[in-house]
């Protein structure tokens, strides 16, 4: 089946070769972990542990406060040595629990359930909720919320997002190669929870090995289809992925469920499988540590709360000066000011860019109206107009140009020959007006 893609998009250098052939390996056990109580979109958790309390690996340390929320669990066993505010990747201070690792790796509540496919959808949902699973592609939206659509929004399709269209990142790629069975089983769980007939796994066609691996794992599964998609950033954006695979367009400001689709990330599917089968909470994930500024790029299975500085140490350190350290991918990730920041459920990668790869934005030119950004905007917006309106302070006017339809994929700023900080200007405008 050939797919016609969404309109627009760009082809940045993908640089995946730095880490794509590095099998997943475990990070050295951290001496301590800093676990933010807010790693997801939605209400932060309330801490349920006290200072000096001993906790086991997998024990809940923060309980969800509200429907759109997800519990957090201890990723190591040991003692709670601090509860307070710590810096996160977005540069904000967030309530966090610090646990000193006693090195015993003592688990709580693991329980194998080989007959997991016979659980009822509600039982599965409960396990996913209790495991604290969130979207692991970056946005960290609580998974169980996506799996509990309101009655008036029937779902008929589940899509696993294996596009991994961000340059440099290879965590999902490695999972697709090394844990294809878990990916497919995770998808089957999602299919059952949502009561749909079909599930798709969308993979960009620049990852033929992953397509092959999953096709093999999905052999004989009538409900699962592995799709090889055109390679184009941002193919992995929910709306773009849905458009490419189903032909449906999510209307402005609407959600995938409005076109009867639920999208989940590859890592999330593996976490869903592990939660339903073993009752394992989301306490570790694969993080790609890569970039020209890293001596030995790796795909590291990392405990949530491990500091970025330790990941980098595990990869032989950083080379050069004037570096940029990014949490996530280079198109949509956050630049870190410090390495003493914990890995969270949404951290897909740590990318260290050398100075030569960074375009400094100390000065930028005027918009020359070349129209490149309009040609490539996957949302069909006119980023040039948005940037001009925002620059001049006409924030209300920017709304008529679809300000809040922009999901900040960064394609416009990538192609802009005047090097205008279009995404920054759009964020500024968004912060100044109500949708």
């Amino acid at each position, binding site marked *: 089946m050939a797919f016609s893609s969404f309109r627009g998009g760009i082809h940045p250098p993908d640089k995946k070769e730095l880490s794509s052939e590095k099998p997943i390996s475990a990070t050295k056990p951290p001496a301590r972990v800093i676990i933010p109580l807010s790693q997801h979109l939605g209400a932060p958790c309330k801490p349920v542990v006290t200072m000096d309390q001993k906790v086991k690996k997998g024990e809940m340390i923060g309980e969800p406060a509200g429907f759109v929320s997800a519990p957090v669990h201890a990723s190591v066993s040991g003692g709670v040595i601090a509860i307070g505010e710590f810096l996160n990747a977005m540069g904000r201070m967030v309530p966090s629990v610090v646990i000193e690792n006693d090195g015993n790796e003592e688990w709580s509540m693991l329980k194998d359930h080989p007959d997991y496919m016979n659980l009822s959808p509600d039982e599965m949902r409960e396990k996913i909720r209790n495991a604290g699973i969130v979207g692991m592609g970056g946005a960290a939206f609580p998974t169980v919320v996506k799996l509990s659509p309101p009655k008036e929004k029937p779902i008929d399709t589940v899509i696993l997002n294996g596009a991994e269209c961000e340059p440099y990142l290879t965590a999902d790629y490695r999972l697709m190669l090394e844990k294809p069975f878990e990916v497919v089983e995770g998808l089957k769980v999602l299919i059952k929870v949502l009561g749909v007939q079909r599930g798709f796994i969308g993979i960009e066609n620049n990852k033929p090995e992953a397509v092959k691996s999953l096709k093999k794992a999905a052999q004989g599964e009538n409900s699962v289809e592995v799709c090889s998609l055109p390679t184009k950033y941002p193919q992995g954006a929910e709306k773009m992925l849905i458009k490419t695979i189903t032909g449906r*367009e999510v209307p402005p400001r609407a959600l995938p469920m409005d076109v009867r689709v639920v999208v989940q990330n590859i890592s999330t599917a593996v976490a869903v499988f592990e939660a339903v089968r073993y009752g394992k909470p989301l306490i570790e994930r694969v993080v790609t540590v890569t970039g020209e500024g890293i001596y030995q790029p790796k795909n590291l299975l990392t405990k949530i709360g491990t500091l970025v500085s330790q990941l980098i140490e595990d990869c032989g350190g950083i080379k050069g000066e004037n570096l940029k350290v990014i949490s996530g991918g280079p198109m949509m990730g956050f630049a870190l000011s410090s390495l003493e920041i914990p890995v969270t459920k949404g951290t897909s990668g740590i990318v260290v860019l050398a100075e030569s790869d960074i375009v400094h934005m100390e000065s930028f030119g005027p918009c020359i*109206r070349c129209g490149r950004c309009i040609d490539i905007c996957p949302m069909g917006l006119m980023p040039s107009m948005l940037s001009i309106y925002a620059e001049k302070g006409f924030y209300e006017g920017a709304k008529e140009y679809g300000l809040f339809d922009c999901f900040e994929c960064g394609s416009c700023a*990538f192609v802009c020959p005047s090097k205008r900080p279009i*995404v920054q200007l759009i964020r500024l405008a968004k912060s100044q007006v109500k949708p």
Partner: protein
Amino acid sequence: MEITKKPFIVSVSPHIRSDETTARIMWSVSACLLPAAVMGAYFFGPRAVLTVSLCVIASVLSEHLYQKALKKPSTVRDGSAFLTGLLLGLNLPPSAPFYLSLIGSFVAIIITKQLFGGLGYNIFNPALIGRAFLVISFPKLMTVWSEPTAAFILLDAKTTATPLGILKEEGPAKLIQVFGDQLNLYAQLITGHRAGSIGETSAVALLIGAAFLLYKRYITWHIPLSFLGTAAVIAWIIGGTDSLFTGDPLLHLFSGGMILGAFFMATDYVTSPSMKSGQIVFGAGCGFLTMLIRLKGGYPEGVMFAILIMNAFAPLIDRGFQSKFFGAGKK
């Protein structure tokens, strides 16, 4: 482990950028005009070289001095002033006295571009306003056309009429008579062995540059094709002397500033619409107005005024042809 003591660079995403820059675009377009400039020098001699050089130098200097005077950073490195000067020079008659180059450059850079806010903010194509100012202020000097000598001599060449001038004053029969036969007329128009502005005469040289611009996607087909297509259709329908549908579209496409205008002037990013759909309307408007002026107006040539008039409509066209939001109107 030793961690660098220097702070990390922090900025908003995206953290990688394409290597395309405004300067590279401007210098590339200038480079694509080189074949036409060389042909201009070949046909019209040192006078032409001097005129074009003066325009380039005066334009770049105007921009630099204006920005120095206003204590702004100089932007001459971005190549846009160079390109404006080059386009202006290529749009002047070979025999234009040196002060026309200076005045035209001043009007183009200072009045049309800088006083409106500089690159990106001008409403009209600077080089064309520079030329229009000269055409209106010095009508005589701007319509003295040297005969192409192709001998690179310093002597003042004989003057003659442009093909469009002959067409306007004496009709198509005379034009063919002047060039011998129809085939020879086409040949001369395509190579550029005819009277006209320095850089507009050689269609083949211009098309080589245009092909590169299209190949590099610095321009797209939308404006040139709708411009030339509309002009050709109108020339064919009402360009004939006897009845409808007897006009000669090729003659109109390859004479005057049609090729130069359609590929290098109407496609100016700043002064044309941003949306592809709007660009087609814009190009069609340019073609229509050009032919209207050529066939029914007082001037033998209409490219310059046509583009300038459409420049004025570009913001309005942009308003009418906005992008379609993803998901809008679909469920």
